[in-house]
């Protein structure tokens, strides 16, 4: 949505169409409404250079694209201030200044209306942006390594849809493998880009530790993780703070050392690991500044799950949040296909701004939405500039009828089968490989090969998938994307023979200079090719690097 708005602000005559699987025209799309309504940015009194340095040393472990990192640091406050032009409500003090939680880190956190996309959709319509809701995109149209549009189907009517475009921005989320409720993106963006010929980057960093709760009935619940982030500093085993034991001090959320601590304590049989809700409440009250609507929504979700919210201990188990957002983009958010851009969760890790972590928010709670706004506004500007040139210099493109027929047949193939396997069965098989934390964030070569065998079983099921309706057809699209992403995750993780950030290997426990590089993965015939990409450290040339 920020890309569409920015594109129109750059050139009001450009024709912008937002195609969405949900209902973007009314602002009900993306994760904003389902997250905590937080925006973390480099606010007043915080040093952008210190932000860049902290991210490089403490979060990205040297694998950051420092150009983007610095640009984010210097522009995030301006982007937040610009939101009011789009009608987005941010929590303010009585004097009108922005109400922010101040951390002992180089950023602040503001509370934003979780329904911010509703306001943005209204503004977009005012600008003349068009919308196509409830459309599942199944293939990007690429000719001579240039984007030409996309095809898909309407999830309610089943109608085949063809879109032609001079430029395309992929902004349909990351790959969460649908393990954690509400954190349910299915990675279609990753597959669309990969199939179109784009490189993916930092795939191996796409799993991070997060905890699930064990309910009173003994059931394990992923995703009801309120408290997870700062709570990483307060994991206890029989009264002992194991977070402090394994890594003393106060750290920003989703800390890989803390996550490893609780995995190691669990595996050693020292459980149960517990968190005290009060610890989180105390800190969240001081440091987070939630929007009231977001707080109410979080409370409702916890209510229906029946979790303690006040003064109780609760048992947790080490779980994972996968956040594969690996489409490789450059500084203008451009991919390897001319005219194809990517933004937000689709390309957070692929931009390399965050480094050796799933991305963003990764270790800075509240930068998920910020990342979407930052990348969205950059890609909107880039796409509109290029579209203007494309339109003037090349003839309109239309796919030959026989190729369209072929794409139509491929799109509905799963519905045309008389019998077969449910897409849910394939998804569950992939989840068997993508949920265990000793496959995802505490890895070993042996276990990853075991996980790859599970993924291979899921892959073998794909040709037999059958959909009974268009909703299930969309699940078939999801299942295909999940299988691909899972396979790429383990292949790249095997290739990186070291431990760094959220990529921890028991067989290679140390960080290695040999891997001061990015790993890119791309399609190579029927297989994949993994290549090293040097990090242009010398070109960043910041004074503090020489200290």
């Amino acid at each position, binding site marked *: 949505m920020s890309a569409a708005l920015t594109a129109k602000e750059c050139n009001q005559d450009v024709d912008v169409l937002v195609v969405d699987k949900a209902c973007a025209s009314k602002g009900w799309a993306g994760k904003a409404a389902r997250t905590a309504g937080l925006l973390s940015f480099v606010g007043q009194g915080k040093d952008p250079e210190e932000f860049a340095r902290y991210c490089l040393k403490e979060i990205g472990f040297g694998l950051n694209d420092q150009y983007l990192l610095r640009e984010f640091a210097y522009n995030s406050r301006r982007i937040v201030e610009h939101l009011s032009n789009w009608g987005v409500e941010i929590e303010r003090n009585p004097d009108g200044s922005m109400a922010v939680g101040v951390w002992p880190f180089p950023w602040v956190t503001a509370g934003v209306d979780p329904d911010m996309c509703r306001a943005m959709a209204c503004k977009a319509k005012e600008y003349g942006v068009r919308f196509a809701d409830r459309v599942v995109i199944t293939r990007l149209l690429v000719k001579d390594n240039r984007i030409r549009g996309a095809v898909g189907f309407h999830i309610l009517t089943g109608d085949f849809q063809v879109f032609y475009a001079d430029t395309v921005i992929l902004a349909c989320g990351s790959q969460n493998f649908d393990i954690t409720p509400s954190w349910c993106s299915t990675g279609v963006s990753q597959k669309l880009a990969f199939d179109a010929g784009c490189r993916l980057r930092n795939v191996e960093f796409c799993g991070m530790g997060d905890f699930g709760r064990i309910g009173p009935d003994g059931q394990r619940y992923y995703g009801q993780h309120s408290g997870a982030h700062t709570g990483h500093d307060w994991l206890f085993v029989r009264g002992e703070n194991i977070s402090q034991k394994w890594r003393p001090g106060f750290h920003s959320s989703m800390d890989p050392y803390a996550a490893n601590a609780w995995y190691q304590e669990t595996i050693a049989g020292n459980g149960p690991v517990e968190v005290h809700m009060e610890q989180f409440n105390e800190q969240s009250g001081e440091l987070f500044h939630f929007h009231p609507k977001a707080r109410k929504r979080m409370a409702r979700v916890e209510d*229906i799950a029946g979790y303690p919210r006040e003064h109780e201990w609760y048992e947790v188990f080490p779980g994972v949040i996968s956040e594969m957002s690996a489409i490789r983009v450059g500084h203008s958010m451009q991919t390897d296909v001319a005219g194809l851009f990517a933004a937000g969760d689709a390309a957070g890790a692929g931009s390399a701004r965050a480094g050796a972590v799933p991305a963003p928010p990764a270790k800075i709670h509240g930068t998920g939405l910020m990342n979407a706004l930052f990348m969205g506004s950059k890609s909107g500007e880039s796409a509109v500039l290029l579209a203007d040139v494309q339109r003037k210099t090349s003839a309109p493109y239309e796919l030959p009828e026989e190729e369209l027929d072929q794409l139509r047949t491929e799109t509905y193939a799963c519905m045309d089968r008389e019998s077969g396997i449910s897409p849910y069965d394939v998804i569950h098989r992939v989840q068997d490989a993508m949920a265990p934390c000793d496959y995802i964030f505490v890895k070993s070569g042996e276990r990853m090969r075991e996980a790859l065998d599970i993924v291979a079983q899921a892959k073998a099921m794909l040709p037999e998938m059958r959909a009974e309706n268009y909703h299930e057809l969309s699940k078939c699209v999801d299942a295909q994307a999940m299988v691909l992403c899972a396979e790429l995750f383990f292949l790249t993780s095997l290739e990186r023979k070291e431990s760094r950030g959220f990529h921890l290997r028991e067989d290679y426990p140390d960080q290695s200079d040999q891997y001061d590089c990015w790993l890119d993965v791309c399609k190579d015939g029927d297989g994949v090719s993994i290549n090293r990409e040097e990090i242009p450290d010398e070109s960043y040339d910041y004074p503090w690097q020489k200290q």
Partner: protein
Amino acid sequence: MIRELRVDAARCTHCRQCLDVCSTNVIGWDEGRDRPYAQFPLDCQLCCICEDACPAGAITVIPNWGLKYYPDYLSKGGMERVKRAHNG
């Protein structure tokens, strides 16, 4: 993973806002009874935004956690290690 999308028929104004807000396409419309229902309950993410968005407060989400497929949080070998450690 929803057991029931409980709809207070007396309050429902048939505005279909709940259909629009459901990003996972779980909610369908029962044309006969002119009200929403959980068409694909398995895919409900329990975000409860449909409750929030209903201008009449006519919707309550009743979860069914048992519907969700929860894979193991450790590999088979990991599970065995924990068991062995617990048993001394």
